[in-house]
């Protein structure tokens, strides 16, 4: 069945499926074919990334390109490989003509041909793209393309996808592709065991490779890789270099992102004020400014951190170093049910859990990835810092010390330590409860070291930002609108009454306007649904030493933890949330209306610190976990688990100190 209408004026669209071993250069080819014309999503029901895009193949021929997850064979052992296997075996309803492009690492032909041979035996339309021909030449080998093509009865195209070489030839082969009958690669034996089949297959591949590859002497690992490994996985230098790289990542996610984040924050504030002033005041104005624009700002603010982290991760992955990190850390982390690669999400979690959880995708084992995602929010992130700073300053005098160490600093460090211990402890116990049907063998190919492809790095950043904006973003917007409603509306006519009270000037006559506005805002927040909710949960949080005002702040903190400071400022009617000294003063003077005792005692303060260290109060994290685990099950378990952990830890802390 040849293609008859090529050459006619009719436009035609086919589907190209890219398959190949991991590290064979599939994403380079995908990027070369589609450019920025690509979308990232998930394969239905699983958390495996699906990349698709459009490519122009010839004048009247275009193709939808699907990048299938890397696999070594068609006997799937991981979720990624299962997706590829299922996708190839499915019939799609649109009946589009499909061509499978197998990308093989030509410098490792024997292993790479296995997958290709299985596809041939499934009688699928296959083109073999022999990638990394530059390495073959460097090894002073040559491959008889014609022989390979004739023996396998499929088109074979040599290429170097990194440099974009061979793309034109590949497109030409796609355009003139015609299905033809082929002999099977190996004869079919009914009821043969997979291992026997694979062995027969390998035998035949050996014969073919022996004829196709000239000067195939002893294949050697490339010398540069060997030399680099001697240093980069060295027991001293290896860890020293790794620490230095971690330090750079930290700097990038923590401080280098700070400036653009500030710009975004100020930009949105400016934009919000602008909208607030240019539109007539009213509900719509408030919803737009305090609900939607504030929510949008709360999403966009994450972009610098996501971009910074993924710039690093894609370079580390592209160069092959990420596999070495895994190699060096695995011995330690596997004891906790984690993977060597879990170290990246866990450490970047100290800046922000959102990009950290997204980075857990580099962990191919499903269980290890899930455990990593589950425990990452327990690591103290930068949004907790304002809360920690405020409370610590409130309950511990700056001059307090233990020996030569400043007590405030010790408490801060202890909070980070508790978070880390809770994270690995949780993982240690959870590993017994999370079941997986994946193979428990961990064999990982270590790619050779190569220079990063900057184009790929760029695409990764763009794709990750897009995924966050469009998939987690909608959940975040929805939650921030709900939070806005909760804190701007109250039951019955309570809000009108507050307005009346302030309008009629019943309060102290010589009060200035600003103070009055602050008090009005405070009164409204207390009368709102969030305020009511705070009072409602007071009996439950009383044993932790919290009053209803803290209750309100805990509820509104779900938007993001640092909102705690802003909410407290509103409740205690301090004009500017950044003005923590005056907020500190007011909180310091706050007294229990019944007993007349100070509210922010040491016990309450420590209890609150512990609560913020453990509780999952971050809608962006919830949204990204839902996205990354493709279900609401895990974020809900996470909220409940971390909530319970926070509650009981605070309860114990409060009783210890009071």
């Amino acid at each position, binding site marked *: 069945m040849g293609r008859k209408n090529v050459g006619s004026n009719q436009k035609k669209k086919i589907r190209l499926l890219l398959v190949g071993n991991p590290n064979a250069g599939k994403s380079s080819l995908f990027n070369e074919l589609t450019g920025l014309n690509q979308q990232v999503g998930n394969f239905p029901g699983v958390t495996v990334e699906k990349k698709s895009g459009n490519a122009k193949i010839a004048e009247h021929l275009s193709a939808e390109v699907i990048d299938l997850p890397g696999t*070594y*064979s068609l*006997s799937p*052992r991981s979720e990624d490989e299962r997706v590829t296997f299922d996708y190839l075996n499915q019939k799609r309803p649109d009946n589009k003509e499909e061509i499978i492009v197998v990308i093989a690492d030509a*410098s*490792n032909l*024997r*292993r790479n041909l*296995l997958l290709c041979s299985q596809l041939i035996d499934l009688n699928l339309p296959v083109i073999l793209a022999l990638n990394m021909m530059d390495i073959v030449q460097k090894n002073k080998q040559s491959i008889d393309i014609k022989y390979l093509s004739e023996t396998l009865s499929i088109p074979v195209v040599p290429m170097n996808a990194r440099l974009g070489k061979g793309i034109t030839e590949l497109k030409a082969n796609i355009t003139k592709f015609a299905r033809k009958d082929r002999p099977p690669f190996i004869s079919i034996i009914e009821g043969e*065991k*997979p*291992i026997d089949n*694979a*062995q027969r297959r*390998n035998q035949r591949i050996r014969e073919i490779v022996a004829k196709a590859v000239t000067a195939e002497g002893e*294949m*050697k*690992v490339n010398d540069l*890789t*060997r030399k680099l*490994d*001697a240093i980069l*996985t*060295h*027991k001293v230098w*290896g*860890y020293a270099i790794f620490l230095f790289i971690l330090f750079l990542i930290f700097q990038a996610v923590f401080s280098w992102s700070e400036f653009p984040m500030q710009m975004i924050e100020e930009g949105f504030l400016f934009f919000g004020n602008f909208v607030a002033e240019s539109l007539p005041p009213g509900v719509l104005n408030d919803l737009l400014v305090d609900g939607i624009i504030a929510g949008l700002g709360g999403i966009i603010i994450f972009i610098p951190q996501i971009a910074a982290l993924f710039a690093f991760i894609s370079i580390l992955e592209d160069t092959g170093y990420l*596999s070495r990190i*895994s*190699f*060096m*850390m*695995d*011995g*330690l982390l*596997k004891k906790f049910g984690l993977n060597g690669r879990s170290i990246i999400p866990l450490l970047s979690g100290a800046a922000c859990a959102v990009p950290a959880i997204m980075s857990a995708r580099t962990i191919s084992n499903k269980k290890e990835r899930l455990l990593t995602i589950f425990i990452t929010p327990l690591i103290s992130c930068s949004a907790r810092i304002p809360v920690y700073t405020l409370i610590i300053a409130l309950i511990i005098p700056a001059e307090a010390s233990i020996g030569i160490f400043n007590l405030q600093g010790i408490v801060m460090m202890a909070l980070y330590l508790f978070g880390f211990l809770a994270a690995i402890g949780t993982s240690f116990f959870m590993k017994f409860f999370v079941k997986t049907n994946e*193979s428990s*063998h*961990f*064999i*990982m*190919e*270590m*790619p*050779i070291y190569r220079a990063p492809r900057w184009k790929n790095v760029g695409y990764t950043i763009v794709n990750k930002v897009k995924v966050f904006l469009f998939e987690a973003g909608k959940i975040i917007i929805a939650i921030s609108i709900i939070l806005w409603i909760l804190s701007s509306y109250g039951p019955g006519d309570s809000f009108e009454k507050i307005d009346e009270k302030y309008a009629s000037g019943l309060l102290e006559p010589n009060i200035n306007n600003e103070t009055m506005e602050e008090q009005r805002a405070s009164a409204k927040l207390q009368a709102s649904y969030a305020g009511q909710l705070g009072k409602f949960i007071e009996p439950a949080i009383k044993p932790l030493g919290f009053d209803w005002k803290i209750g309100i702040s805990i509820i509104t903190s779900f938007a993001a933890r640092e909102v705690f400071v802003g909410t407290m400022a509103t409740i205690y009617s301090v004009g500017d949330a950044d003005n923590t000294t005056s907020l500190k003063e007011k909180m310091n003077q706050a007294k229990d209306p019944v007993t007349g005792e100070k509210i922010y005692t040491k016990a309450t303060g420590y209890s609150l610190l512990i609560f913020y260290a453990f509780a999952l109060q971050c809608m962006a994290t919830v949204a990204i976990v839902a996205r990354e685990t493709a279900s609401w099950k895990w974020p809900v378990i996470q909220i409940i688990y971390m909530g319970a952990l926070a509650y009981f830890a605070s309860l114990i802390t409060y009783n210890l100190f009071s």
Partner: protein
Amino acid sequence: MSNFIHLSEAKKGDFVRIESIDNEKLSVQLLCMGCMVGEIAHIEQIAPLGDPMMISIDGSLLSLRKSDAREVIVSQLKK
């Protein structure tokens, strides 16, 4: 050639021949990654924490955990 050992016992720098793989699932997986009975493996590195190990076979590098390497029987070759 009588000194059969588990791959997990091999030392850095050793050359070994893979003699048998006890676990069928593991052997299919290893085979798909280019590691099969009869191949010569070179122990390239052992992670500083003692686990996993990095071996090279036919020009490609594989990292495997000791728990899996224990199921692979190899014979030591002269260097």
